[in-house]
């Protein structure tokens, strides 16, 4: 098979899957290297979930035996450079990882030992093991890279105070609103509400602020030709859109009736 970008023999085969849509690209080693498909940007080992079906992972069986010299890989679209995932050049890597050596300064856990037992050593590992771990987490969680949902009450109270303080960034306010404004917050989950805390602005307003900020960052990244960063921002925007369209759904009246009848 020929390389998609030149006429050389393709030895790197990549399959992208997003929402059931399947796309492939086939590259020679040189073009693949230019697109950053080796090394840090494409972790060779994947995290397997401890429960249930296996997520898309790198390192599966070669698809063109016996010629290929590199493994068949399945990469989340969030890791790809352009909207089509195929042609945009990626000249620069993302921001450097906090711990380049891949060792947690909190407990000494290394990425190598994590790949063996699939357990982290301490809460600090999440920061210390840097972007390699972040990539694996994204892969396991279908491209999601940050938490949305319940936060500890004490942090929620602190965040509400910060949100009510003039000068707080839109990002911080959006984060609080996304956490606090789910339908469950107003009905079945008292855990989300703190009596007496300042009122939170409407979800839609806060998400709009977050999206506006992301769009500005996206424009800057494109201007600076930081395509990988731009791709991440684009995916985060898409995720926020999906979130907005689903979290504001209220339970159907029929469901409420069913709940009332349930012990």
């Amino acid at each position, binding site marked *: 098979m020929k390389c998609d970008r030149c006429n050389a023999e393709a030895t790197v085969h990549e399959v992208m899957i997003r929402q*059931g849509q399947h796309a492939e690209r086939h590259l020679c080693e040189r073009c693949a290297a230019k697109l950053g498909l080796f090394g840090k940007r494409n972790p060779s080992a994947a*995290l397997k*979930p*401890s*429960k*249930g*079906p296996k997520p898309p992972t790198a390192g599966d069986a070669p698809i063109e035996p016996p010629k290929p010299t590199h493994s068949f890989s399945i990469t989340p679209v969030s890791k790809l450079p352009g909207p089509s995932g195929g042609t945009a050049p990626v000249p620069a890597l993302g921001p450097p990882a906090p711990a380049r050596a891949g060792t947690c300064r*909190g*407990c*000494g*856990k290394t990425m190598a030992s994590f790949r063996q*037992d*699939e*357990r*982290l*050593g*301490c*809460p600090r590992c*999440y*920061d210390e093991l840097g972007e390699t771990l972040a990539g*694996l*987490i994204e892969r*396991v*969680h*279908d*491209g*999601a*890279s*940050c*938490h*949305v*949902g*319940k*936060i*500890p*009450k*004490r942090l929620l109270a602190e965040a509400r105070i910060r949100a009510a303080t003039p000068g707080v960034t839109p990002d911080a306010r959006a*984060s609080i609103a996304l*956490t606090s404004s*789910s*339908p*469950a*917050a107003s009905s*079945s*989950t*008292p*855990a989300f509400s703190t009596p007496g805390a300042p009122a939170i602005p409407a979800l839609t307003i806060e998400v709009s602020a977050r999206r506006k900020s992301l769009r500005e960052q996206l424009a800057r990244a494109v201007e600076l030709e930081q395509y990988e960063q731009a791709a991440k921002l684009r995916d985060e925007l898409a*995720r926020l859109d999906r*979130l907005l369209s*689903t*979290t504001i*759904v209220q*339970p*159907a009246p029929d*469901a409420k009736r*069913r*709940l009332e*009848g*349930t*012990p």
Partner: protein
Amino acid sequence: MSDTRAPWSVESARRGAGWLLGGAIDGDVVVSCRVRLARNLSGFPFLSRATLDQRLEVMDAVRAQIARASLGPALLWANIHELPSLERTLLVERHLMSKELAKGDLPRGLAVTLPDERVSVMVNEEDHLRVQCLLPGMALPQAWAMASEADDRLEDGLDIAYSSRYGYLTACPTNVGTGVRMSVMLHLPALRLSAEIEKVKRAASDMGLSVRGFYGENSEASGDLFQISNQRTLGRPESMILAELHEQIVPTVIAYERAARRNLLDKQPRLVEDQCGRALGLLLHARLLTPEETMGAISMVRLGRALNIADCASIAADDATLLQLMLQVQPAHLQRIAERQMDQQQRREYRADLVRQRLTPATGA
């Protein structure tokens, strides 16, 4: 251990478990709901790297907070590492703790609310704390509310590991974020009989859900009991996971199962009557029974009752009794009910006797 409310007491074994009582809504298919939250203390390593002292320190801190938290009218605490093997197995059979917690002799504990056994907290399992709420019937929102409330009460006195980027930090990154696993246990005999269950499993997998057996990971779906639960824990709020399972996935699977039942009765009445009749015959007349064949037969009799197949509909045991029997025929429960230790052969004999008693009108429970 003399407290009759303890989950390992003879009385509890004979009574069965509250979460197997079934529910008024969709009780023909839905057995129970479970919500589990994984939490860790900041400032301590996860358990794979914790020293003995650190394990003890975590356990003491969590235990003290559990005692303060008023999780229920009464609370049982067990040092699992000091508990005899039979009691550990009883707790696993009752779904109050995992097989992982039952293993090993390093410090680990379990708190259970009494007498309902609805909320339990595993300490020093894969994560420092795992809060669980288990309710009968289609009660996932209530289970979530109760688990979250327990979580809040525990968090009040503990410094929980949390990051603004990743949410609740867990030993395995597959649980990071919400740390929540919401499960619904369903009785799906007709989907299994009509070989449609594989389609359900594939569809669930495509939607990021897992389908597991009665005893969770790597267990077979004994008695056609399947647990459907979310896999992804990052990037989606609990409310979304809950709404998806409760409003979309589970109702759809219930509808499939009911359609499969109707279809079996319409198109293959003789076959389904035969299967249910054979199962009832086995339960009423066998003198040696294994747990697997017992659960399979109970499942078919339960299906027979739902389809109003004459022989099955006239037995002494109701749906809830049949579900309880699935628990009571497990090895540890059986020995506790009998109040003696038994080898495998003795258990098979006693199991057959117990089942026959429960299903026979003259001496039924």
